[in-house]
């Protein structure tokens, strides 16, 4: 670090320290008792009056902003014409709750000019000093346009009827300087806002009316328009209607955006009647805000728009029907889903179908679905799921038996969501009837989902176990997979029983179910198969599942249980693949036991590299707390592992002779 940088850093540290002290000092600079305050104020006044540097006087002004009384006003007033200190004096005077402060600012008007005067006028404006209206009105004629503009802005903030009148004259007198027109307009709008807040609605409205003429910039006209909606609320609907129907796109946009706030009865219907008269783009906007109101009275107009030749209008209307439609709109939406002229339109229609409220919608969707082309039925089934249409279960069961695979699969998936435990017998029957693997998987998933809805966890597998007793072949295999998904104690018992089934496929399905078991309850059974299984496939499936469950425990931070299982797995694993699985799963278990187990594999040439890698990974985390154990382990890695990179890294953890 060079000297300059070091010095700069010291400066920064000192400054930061100064900061904290300054903060404390500032808080302390507002003493609680009156006497101390008076003394402090007197001292600050002396600072202002004396020859202190600018920074000191700035600081005094900041403090007087908080504690200053009328006593300090003369000292501050004396600075108002000072080009360097005027602003800081205003900082103190502007927020003071004393008439003396306002008077000091007013008195400074004739003594100042240019930007200094602009600042003083700004402070009077901030204070909304009504007594300054006369002087400020005179300043509107100042040859310095910056001063005239500041005076206009201040009058706008003061916003009394008198100030507003002065601004009317100023504005309509069309000040010559180009910069003054926007200031005049803004000041008038500000005054109008103030008058509105004070309850002078008509005066405010008159200003807004004047500012709506085309000679004013668009944002002034828009501001005036929205102001009028507040000032004359009873005329709002008519005004908005007129603006929507008019040819000014600016006003039309603002008018449409104002509609959601209009709550009077019949308003939505009135605006909806305008829809057909509008250009397409405006229709899109209006449809959007009408939809937000979710008012049924606009439905006929939206339905009409849904038949528009314009694709954007049509799509907007189809979307809006999701909010304002009812069962009577189902057919329109369903037809749009089937025959929409673009993917966007079809998708919007599908979403609207899902959102549509009211009685009879589900039934209407089902009715349409039954006669719809097979290819579009999955979309309707999806809508029924999104609508949580539990009443459609019977029809979905029928669809699940249909000819088309896509429809069958959609129906089965839907049944998993919509059907309840009472429908389980029908679903089990359906599962037994499945002929191909794809739909069988869907049926299995549905049965599993429904079984899990049974409120008593202990009883969730009962119906499936009952069916298992009567099933054979692929259906029995399916039920075993379902039991694996349910995963309670009774299910485990049933699956373990199936390990002794005469049918090889059933036995294998049982092993698969155990290997996929959701928790470690299946571990003992898996270990037994891994050790004593009659086929190699069963043993591989079982040991893989067992290692997975051990890894699951490790992730749950049940380290001791996990390590016990990994130890058992290590003794049962026969192939390098399973040993690698063990080593991979152990990388996150940062214990000496895991390290030792990993090292025990390094003498096995088939997995020595993986064992060395895992041992090294664990060593990185254990070396600090267990240097001796890690050193010993790494010595074994070095002596057996052939991977140079691993060996080189392992050597770093081996303690040198004599080292402590």
């Amino acid at each position: 670090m060079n000297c300059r940088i070091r010095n700069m850093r010291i400066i920064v540290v000192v400054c930061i320290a100064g900061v904290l002290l300054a903060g404390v000092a500032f808080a302390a600079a507002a003493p609680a008792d009156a006497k101390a305050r008076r003394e402090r104020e007197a001292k600050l006044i002396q600072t202002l009056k004396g020859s202190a540097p600018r920074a000191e006087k700035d600081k005094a002004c900041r403090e007087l902003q908080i504690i200053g009384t009328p006593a300090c006003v003369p000292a501050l007033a004396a600075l108002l014409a000072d080009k360097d200190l005027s602003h800081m004096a205003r900082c103190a005077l502007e927020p003071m709750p004393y008439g003396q402060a306002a008077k000091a600012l007013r008195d400074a008007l004739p003594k100042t000019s240019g930007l200094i005067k602009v600042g003083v006028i700004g402070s009077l404006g901030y204070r909304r000093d009504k007594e300054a209206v006369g002087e400020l009105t005179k300043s509107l004629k100042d040859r310095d346009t910056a001063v005239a503009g500041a005076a206009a802005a201040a009058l706008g903030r003061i916003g009394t009827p008198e100030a507003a009148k002065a601004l009317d004259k100023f504005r309509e007198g069309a000040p010559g300087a180009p910069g003054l027109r926007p200031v005049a307009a803004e000041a008038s709008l500000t005054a109008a806002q103030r008058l509105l807040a004070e309850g002078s609605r008509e005066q405010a409205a008159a200003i807004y009316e004047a500012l709506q003429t085309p000679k004013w910039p668009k944002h002034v006209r828009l501001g005036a328009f929205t102001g009028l909606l507040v000032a004359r609320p009873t005329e709002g609907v008519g005004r908005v209607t007129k603006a929507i129907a008019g040819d000014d796109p600016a006003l039309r946009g603002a008018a449409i955006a104002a509609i959601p706030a209009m709550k009077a009865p019949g308003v939505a219907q009135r605006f909806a009647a305008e829809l057909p008269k509008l250009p397409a783009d405006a229709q899109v906007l209006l449809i959007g805000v009408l939809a937000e109101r979710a008012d049924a009275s606009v439905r006929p107009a939206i339905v009409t728009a849904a038949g528009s030749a314009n694709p954007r209008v049509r799509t907007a209307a189809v979307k809006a029907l999701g909010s304002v439609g009812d069962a009577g709109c189902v057919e329109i939406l369903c037809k749009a889903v089937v025959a929409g002229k673009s993917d966007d339109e079809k998708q919007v229609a599908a979403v609207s179908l899902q959102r549509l409220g009211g009685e009879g919608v589900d039934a209407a969707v089902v009715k349409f679905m039954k006669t719809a082309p097979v290819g579009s039925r999955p979309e309707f089934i999806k809508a029924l799921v999104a609508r949580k249409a539990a009443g459609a279960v019977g029809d979905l069961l029928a669809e699940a038996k249909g000819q088309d695979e896509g429809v069958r699969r959609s129906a089965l998936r839907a049944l998993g969501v919509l059907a309840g435990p009472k429908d389980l017998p029908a679903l089990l029957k359906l599962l037994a009837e499945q002929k191909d693997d794809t739909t069988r998987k869907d049926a299995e998933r549905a049965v599993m989902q429904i079984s899990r809805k049974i409120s008593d966890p202990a009883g969730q597998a009962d119906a499936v176990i009952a069916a298992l007793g009567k099933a054979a072949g692929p259906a029995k295999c399916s039920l075993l997979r379902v039991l694996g998904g349910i995963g309670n104690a009774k299910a485990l018992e049933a699956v373990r029983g199936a390990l002794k089934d005469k049918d090889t496929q059933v036995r294998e399905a049982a092993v698969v179910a155990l290997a996929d078991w959701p928790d470690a309850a299946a571990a003992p059974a898996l270990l037994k198969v891994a050790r004593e299984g009659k086929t190699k496939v069963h043993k591989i499936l079982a040991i893989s599942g067992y290692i997975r469950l051990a890894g699951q425990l490790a992730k749950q931070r049940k380290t001791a249980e996990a390590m016990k299982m990994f130890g058992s797995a290590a003794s049962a694993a026969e192939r390098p693949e399973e040993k690698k699985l063990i080593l991979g799963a152990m990388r996150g278990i940062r214990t000496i036991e895991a390290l030792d187990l990993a090292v025990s594999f390094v003498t096995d040439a088939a997995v020595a590299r993986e064992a060395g890698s895992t041992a090294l990974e664990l060593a990185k985390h254990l070396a600090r707390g267990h240097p001796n154990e890690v050193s010993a382990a790494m010595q074994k890695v070095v002596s057996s592992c052939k991977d140079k990179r691993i060996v080189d890294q392992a050597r770093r953890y081996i303690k040198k002779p004599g080292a402590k």
Partner: protein
Amino acid sequence: MSGTNSGRLNRRSFLQRAASGAGGLLAAPYVITSAALGAEDRAPAGERIVMGGIGLGGRGRYVMGAFMRNKDVQMVAVCDVQSGRRKGAKATVDRRYGNKDCKAYIDMRELLARDDIDAVVIATGDNNHSIASIEAARAGKDMYCEKPMSVAIAESRAVAETMRRFSRIYQCGTQRRNIGNFMFAVDLARSGKLGKLRAVHAEKAGSRSGVHFTVLPAQPEPPREVMDWNGWLGPSAWRPYNSKYYTRGFWSNHGDWSGGSITEWGSHTVDLCQWACDADNTGPVDYRTTNQRGDVEAVYANGVKLIIRKGLRFGSCPVRFEGEEGWVETGDSGRIETHPKSLLAERKFRGGYPATNHVREFLDCVKTRKQPVSTADAAHHSITACHVANICVRLGRAVKWDPAKEEFVGDAEADRLRSRAYRQPWRL
């Protein structure tokens, strides 16, 4: 503040937005650009929103980039008081469009005077956020403005009034209102799933609250083309140039230019708490500090506590909402934790705090003239809660606030800190 769902954003539309994660607003094709709206003698500008960027340091460049990724945006001008940032921003825009058309300005008023610009991104230092927003509105522009909205209460009040005055679209850069995990957490609070709310927690940026007013020794002032010092100071008090002033860790804790730790993150986290409490149009009424570090406990009129502190989990800008029947905590890591766990309904969220959705919402609002979720009024009330907390810390005592009148209760001393006199020629 009323019940759980009386706000502008009803539950249905809220969830639709949460589900879409992108504002969910209809991206209507109707673009009301300046050319289409204002300049009657010109043809409509088509689908594009013509934009400029003001204040383009790291954050500004990021947000500008997020805007430029939208096909309906054409960035045409950049402005920064620092030459390096100005040139870098111009180069970024030119590179994006494969030309040299982007114009660079030192003074934002020159950029704002351009009739062809519809909207601006404002990402100056905090000190200039309010004045830049107000000047943009005066020039008839819509704007996305970075947070915090202001350095003083009176400023953000003025911003909100100015936006109404000119019927502008203003979006505060509180982009977490358009990010899934925060929207989900807020929905849990607003929908009553946490039961009656008891407390909302907002993380502040640093461990210590408060600001400093340090004066550094003068250094030779660079030429205006290199660093427009007067422009950087904006409406704040003049002081001699020193380059240290505009290093981030310095100005962001200096009382002339920022609100320090509380406004830095509070503009997001307090804002989310306000939203969760359905308090977008109000704020807490009683404030007190709870320790030497300047943590603040504020209480709403209905008894809900707003706690501004450190120590929450899940990355930057975390929040926690506690009700009588549950709680939720989340942050920028995207992690979210609830009690009971079932409230989460296995929802997962990506981490980070991208501006993408927020920016898109703004653009849609410019087109539809709808107000965004981070309105000037909502942002004003959120940042006001932060400013009042800061005043409480600065005065070293409890304060009472009247959110309707926007004044302290029987506390003329605190009232004086609601505003800062603007240095001429700037005005609110």
